[in-house]
């Protein structure tokens, strides 16, 4: 079955959620939201199936204690998986959501750090999602650390970066080595291409497999059951991603 790039990315994220128990999805996160909805649907008959809490809309949003509940809930250790992005991301998994240039006089200002400076510390498995894979994004050192990828010993930090999903590849973050390692390359791309477009060093195993594409079953589920569900929170996204494929 054919699929487009966005569907591929959703399913790649989904493959990282299969052992998650409680996934939270923040504002403006339609890809992670779709992936989590997909895995929740796939595991709905399991006792320990994926639980999903999405903010940014009323759908799939169980919170009843205001905007702070997502953060409080994470601080309590109830959420094991969360997603962050970055205007810039560096090789130590530091992320910048604020802007480029010499802060506070940014050259280009982006929205801001959101909850990253907290969530990155307390959620065990943070998945970084940033489709654009260029040296503009993946820099040697971020201009502003919205949230650091690693912390010194003694800093309370049950959480941190787990994986990075881009339009070119999947990397996993090694917390001991404080470095990314290339895990798989998306179909049609090469290790060399990834190196060319990444501004930091990362570990490359001897053999790097190709990222598996979505199964037909997963694609069908995504298009039929998940797309109307995600449309409740992200109507524009669904119109764009699924209109040509359904």
């Amino acid at each position: 079955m054919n699929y487009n790039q966005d569907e591929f990315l959703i399913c790649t994220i989904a493959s990282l959620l299969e052992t998650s128990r409680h996934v939270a999805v923040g504002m403006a996160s339609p890809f992670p939201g779709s992936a989590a909805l997909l895995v929740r649907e796939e595991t709905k008959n399991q006792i320990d199936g994926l639980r999903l809490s999405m903010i940014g809309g009323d759908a799939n949003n169980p919170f009843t204690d205001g905007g702070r509940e997502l953060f409080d809930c994470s601080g309590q250790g109830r959420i094991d998986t969360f997603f962050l992005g970055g205007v810039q991301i560096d090789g130590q998994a530091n992320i910048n959501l604020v802007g480029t240039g010499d802060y506070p006089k940014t050259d280009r200002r982006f929205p801001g750090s959101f909850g990253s400076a907290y969530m990155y510390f307390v959620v065990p498995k943070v998945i970084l999602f940033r489709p654009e894979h260029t040296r503009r994004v993946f820099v040697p050192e971020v201009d502003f650390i919205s949230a650091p990828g690693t912390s010194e010993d003694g800093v309370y930090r049950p959480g941190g970066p787990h994986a990075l999903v881009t339009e070119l590849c999947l990397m996993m973050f090694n917390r001991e080595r404080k470095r990314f390692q290339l895990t798989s390359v998306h179909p049609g791309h090469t290790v060399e291409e990834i190196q060319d477009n990444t501004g930091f060093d990362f570990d490359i195993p001897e053999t790097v497999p190709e990222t598996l594409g979505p199964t037909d079953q997963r694609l069908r589920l995504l298009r039929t059951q998940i797309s109307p569900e995600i449309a409740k929170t992200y109507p524009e996204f669904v119109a764009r991603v699924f209109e040509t494929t359904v």
Partner: protein
Amino acid sequence: MALFTTLDDLAQQVADEALIVLPPDYSNVPVAAVMALIRRGVKDLHLLFAPIGGIAGDLLIGAGCVKTLEAAAITMGEAGLAPRFSEAVQTNTIAMLDSTCPAIHTALQASEKGVPFMPLRGLIGSDVLKNRADWQVIVDPFDKNDGPIVLLPAIQPDIALIHAPLADRDGNVWIGKRRELMTMAHAAKTTFVTVEEIQDDNLLENDLTAAGTLPDMYVGAIAEAEKGCWPLGLAGRYPADTAAIMDYVEQASSQVGFEEWLKIYGAPR
């Protein structure tokens, strides 16, 4: 001061230089009241979002009402970056206090509880913390091995400005599950509210509505404003007008375009 008033009179009661807290885009944003503030020509606001802002912040910034902005982010969501905000920060015409969502919730909770500060995990090693001279880092006094922890000073807004679907004649306001509005109102010296409608039945006397009601003791002024969140939506009442938001982002990409937009949509309705 009369509790029940008009939109423009409510705006008159907001002083220049006030510290105003506004809710995030998913939660009852009083855009009509923001337009009224702009018409009134309010100046030098210290504008706080609890914890992120959107078009309400962009409008106030574009109209030159804001001196200092504190937020975890300003975003137009799926419509893109907030144009007036981005330009104002890039050209340094407003003072920006970058924060992170739970830090703003926590600082408001400190004010709600009447304590001078509250602790928060995380933050250590971030440039958010590095740029906040008003935050402190201490060693957890209960466990020296627990590492450093950040203390955030309480933020007490002069006014919490919110919209709600419903108020009653006694001044109680139904906010449903949007409890960040409760924290904002408790933390602020007073709360100004625009509402879709006002009902006769007391909201506190019905167990179902009481659970989501902000009591009148926190409320300083109420004005009716039908579709008061437009172009944003109000949960359970009307959806966001996505086309209008997209149109705003496009037009407001220049200050001239912004002012033209404001001339059309910022007038009293």
